[in-house]
């Protein structure tokens, strides 16, 4: 039978009616012609034809798809049943919508970030290569350019290999455009071909561009091209000023390309901007390497060759820090490695929420089924097959879940949009969209939850022996044990899942609070920071740098409200930036191949006072310590304790390799020891050394952060200071204008995001579980009101009744709590890497959860129990 005719059979039937009427009319005409009177003629016609309705019914049946027909009937029946209890239905649909929405949204993100192949041709052959470092301490360490050149020349497992490193440039404005700081990468010419990407406009870099002496070339990303150059293709071949140096725009990258991340605005040739000695260096680990595996070579063999080569290089250069091996991982994994665990944790959390929602709907349906037990039994006795009755249940829960799924898809797309705006740091975040697999996923979980939520109650309902149910008049008191058991175990599972979510949320939240409250080592209130970088053209030597820095500081300090102002190359919490290898000439030399490192910072003399970092020993820098021959250094306590245990570091020296010196070395006298500052929130304290920003010493004196302390309302100083800088040098852009609080906020984004989301899910499931507990207990009390009435009539005290019902509720809660705690203990270790300063078995969190759950489940059971204890036995018995 055709589906079309099945759907249109009402219209079709009407046509048959007309046809049969015509037939009767014909017969009647014929009979009249034979001489009958009209009534008799019509009567005879009907006798001849038979019952037209019967014929129509036969025809109608011929057009019916039986299964569809009965499903359609079930569907209408389910909708009618659900419409009779609108509140129940609305709650159930909303619960499912929340569960399904959260899942669909998170699945969308997980798919885009972790699962979907990168948008490059044959992206599965793209890999990232890393150095494996020194004494096995660091794996996946950034690569030294010299190593890359050897790999490129001497290995055979890769079609091509490219290197890139992060850069920042001052991009000068044209006309009335403001100058700005842009994030860029220096990429070797092979990067675009290795990725398999064609520029949208113009060309990529050529080997000729990728040399020191070449004419400077630049590639714009699409976003910079549109934002800064109005999307005007005539920019091709024209020049832009980067750090006051002319670069010719040779091409524009495609709009969809966000490599290595969305913040990158511009590409320049690697070997043009990296100094020749850095390009040859095996000890200067600054760059990332991307390679395309050859089709005919096993990845394992390819990396083994690189690894072996790197070991040989390491043996060659024992005096400098050279990686002693190499590692490789797929590019997709490389980009998403930091997000994998948190996203999967969130996905697990929303999965739990969905399961709880599903169990909740199931237990609500169980309760309803129980009240329809006799109806079902009667229908079974009248010949309703088990399959038919089962189907009805499943259809009913499918209607709930289907509506929930539809609503959930809407909620989910909102949530996805929110995630997209909230987490711009996720790779491939721009590519996130609701596509066919996502819709299939939603359909699948909708169907799954629908079937689960429908089958559980249906099985319990139809497994009843019909006769028992029919005999079971309302006079027989007490619900049957098996059905109560099912409901209780559903509750216990709900509680167990809730406990696990609560524990997870508690741990993440505590970790986040720890991180947030972590001591950076300085006072962070009312501290404003902003970065600027002085280009080589215009600020060729240290004198000019010093002049600018000093004049800026002098004028900033004049601004009303400014309490103190200083310079530092990297503020506390601002990141790693760079370390340097050193020796201590007063100590015996280290074993060959052993190296020690410390992070380096450049500061002005008043920096420690401005930041309120305590002096532990010695002195701060003096204002006159600025000539090239001033060789002084201040170290932090960690460095003092690590490298000068049991001795006074003051007066000792740090020795650095320095090509410009006659003997290739340079010694710095330690003049002070200061309190520790953390380079990154949540990171371990590291050895750190400080050099004067006014002396042409170790460290970076060009790119610095201005830190300004005010008594209050430090944000209001941002604008006057920026105006001041524009006055001193109109071409100098300022970037990263942030208060210290904002910097802390930025570095806790991930942790707060995870903690808050998981907490929200945990609260939601706690709510669901307590509603479930309350609902089921209320229902039980209603069912047992007769029994309770008799108990009270026979002399049971209110306390006893109260206890009876409370026990009913608390028993599954306790069971669930125990199971949940066991599950949490087993699962918490998985969270370890996401927790800062909190043990995954934190006793405060665990006992807090136990307490919370005990209180909530007591409250949820207390209300129905109290109602039961107030039951008037006369009324209860009369109700039957």
């Amino acid at each position, binding site marked *: 039978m055709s589906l079309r005719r099945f759907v249109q059979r009402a219209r079709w039937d009407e046509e048959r009616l007309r*046809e049969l009427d*015509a037939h009767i009319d014909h*017969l009647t005409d014929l009979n009249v012609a034979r001489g009958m009177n009209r009534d008799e003629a019509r009567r005879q016609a009907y006798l001849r034809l038979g019952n037209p309705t019967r014929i129509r019914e*036969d025809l109608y049946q*011929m057009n019916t798809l039986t299964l569809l027909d009965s499903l359609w009937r079930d569907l209408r029946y389910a909708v009618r049943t659900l419409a009779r209890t609108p509140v129940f239905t609305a709650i159930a649909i909303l619960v499912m919508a929340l569960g399904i929405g959260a899942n669909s949204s998170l699945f969308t993100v997980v798919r885009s970030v972790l699962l979907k192949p990168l948008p490059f041709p044959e992206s599965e052959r793209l890999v990232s290569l890393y150095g494996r470092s020194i004494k096995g301490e660091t794996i996946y360490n950034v690569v030294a350019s010299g190593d890359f050149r050897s790999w490129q020349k001497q290995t055979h497992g890769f079609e091509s290999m490219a290197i890139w490193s992060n850069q920042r440039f001052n991009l000068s404005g044209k006309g009335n455009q403001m100058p700005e700081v842009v994030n860029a990468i220096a990429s070797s010419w092979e990067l675009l071909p290795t990725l398999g990407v064609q520029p949208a406009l113009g060309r990529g870099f050529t080997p000729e561009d990728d040399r020191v002496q070449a004419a400077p070339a630049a590639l714009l990303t699409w976003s910079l091209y549109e934002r800064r150059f109005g999307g005007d293709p005539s920019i091709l071949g024209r020049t832009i000023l980067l750090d006051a140096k002319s670069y010719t725009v040779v091409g524009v990258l495609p709009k969809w390309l966000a490599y290595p991340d969305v913040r990158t605005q511009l590409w320049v040739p690697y070997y043009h901007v990296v100094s020749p000695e850095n390009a040859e260096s095996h000890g200067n680990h600054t760059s990332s390497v991307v390679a395309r595996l050859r089709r005919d070579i096993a990845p394992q063999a390819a990396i083994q060759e690189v690894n072996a080569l790197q070991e040989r290089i390491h043996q060659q250069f024992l005096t400098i820090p050279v990686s002693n091996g190499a590692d490789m991982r797929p590019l997709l994994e490389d980009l998403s490695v930091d997000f994998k665990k948190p996203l999967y944790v969130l996905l697990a959390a929303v999965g739990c929420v969905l399961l709880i929602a599903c169990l909740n709907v199931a237990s609500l349906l169980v309760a309803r089924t129980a009240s329809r037990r006799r109806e079902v039994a009667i229908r079974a006795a009248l010949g309703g097959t088990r399959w038919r009755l089962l189907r009805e249940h499943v259809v009913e829960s499918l209607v709930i879940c289907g509506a929930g799924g539809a609503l959930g898809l809407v909620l989910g797309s909102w949530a996805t949009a929110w995630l997209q705006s909230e987490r711009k740091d996720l790779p491939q975040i721009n590519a996130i969209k609701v596509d066919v697999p996502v819709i299939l996923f939603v359909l699948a979980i909708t169907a799954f939850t629908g079937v689960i939520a429908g089958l559980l109650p249906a099985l319990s309902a139809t497994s009843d022996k019909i006769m028992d149910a029919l005999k079971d008049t309302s006079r027989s008191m007490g619900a049957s044990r098996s059905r109560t058991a099912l409901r209780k175990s559903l509750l216990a599972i709900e509680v167990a899942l809730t406990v696990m979510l609560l524990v997870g949320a508690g741990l993440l939240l505590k970790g986040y609070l720890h991180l947030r409250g972590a001591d950076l080592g300085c006072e962070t209130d009312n501290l404003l920071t902003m970065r600027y970088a002085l280009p080589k053209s215009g600020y060729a030597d240290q004198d000019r740098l010093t002049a600018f820095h000093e004049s800026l500081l002098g004028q900033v300090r004049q601004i009303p409200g400014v309490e103190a102002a200083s310079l530092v190359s990297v503020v506390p919490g601002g990141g790693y930036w760079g370390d340097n290898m050193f020796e201590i000439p007063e100590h015996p030399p280290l074993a060959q191949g052993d190296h020690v490192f410390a992070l380096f910072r450049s500061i002005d003399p008043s920096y420690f006072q401005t930041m309120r970092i305590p002096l532990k020993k010695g002195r701060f820098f003096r204002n006159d310590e600025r000539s090239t021959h001033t060789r002084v250094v201040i170290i932090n306590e960690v460095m003092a304790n690590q490298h000068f245990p049991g001795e006074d570091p003051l007066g000792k020296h740090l020795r650095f390799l320095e090509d410009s010196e006659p003997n290739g070395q340079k010694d710095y006298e330690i003049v002070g020891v200061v309190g520790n500052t953390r380079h990154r929130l949540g990171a371990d304290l590291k050895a750190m050394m400080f050099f004067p920003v006014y002396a042409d010493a170790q460290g970076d004196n060009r790119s610095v952060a201005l830190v300004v302390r005010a008594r209050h309302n430090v944000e209001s100083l941002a604008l006057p200071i920026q105006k001041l800088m524009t006055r001193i040098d109109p071409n100098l852009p300022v970037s990263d204008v942030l208060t210290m609080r904002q910097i802390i906020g930025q570095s806790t984004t991930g942790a707060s995001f995870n903690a808050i989301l998981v907490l929200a899910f945990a609260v939601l499931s706690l709510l669901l579980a307590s509603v479930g507990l309350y609902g089921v207990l209320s229902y039980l009390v209603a069912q047992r009101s007769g029994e309770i009435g008799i108990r009270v009539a026979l002399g049971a005290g209110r306390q006893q009744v109260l206890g009876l019902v409370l026990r009913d509720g608390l028993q599954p809660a306790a069971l669930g709590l125990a199971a949940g705690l066991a599950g949490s203990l087993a699962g918490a270790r998985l969270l370890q890497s996401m927790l800062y300063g909190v043990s995954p078995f934190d006793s405060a969190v665990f006992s807090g959860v136990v307490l919370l759950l005990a209180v909530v489940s007591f409250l949820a059971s207390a209300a129905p129990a109290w109602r039961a204890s107030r039951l008037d036995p006369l009324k209860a018995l009369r109700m039957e």
Partner: protein
Amino acid sequence: MAQGRKPDNREMVQGTLDMLILRTLVGGRAHGHTIAQLIEQSSDDVLQVEQGSLYPALHRLEDRGWVASSWGTSENNRTARFYELTKAGRGQLTREADRWRAMADAIGRVLGDFGTRGRRKPKESEG
């Protein structure tokens, strides 16, 4: 449906109604009533079309694409639904007719002259 009813030798042999309808339509398009009438007339009223099963049969035939139908006006100016043979219907009729003849022949051979001889015996005393 037919249970409990007495077998009637004028009732249609199962499945032949479809073939007869197709055969009737070879002469041109016709509406339900005419089809029934034509079958009855051309069988000298031996076959009586149970009119109740006529329409389901027409419906079945149309469903298989052997007949097509449309509304039209009958000879006595009444609207009626007319059926006509399609090309596929003609092919089907040929096959059915062949099958039927083969079947009838075969059955005839099996029966031989069993009934005829027995009944005629008293007349043909010399055989």
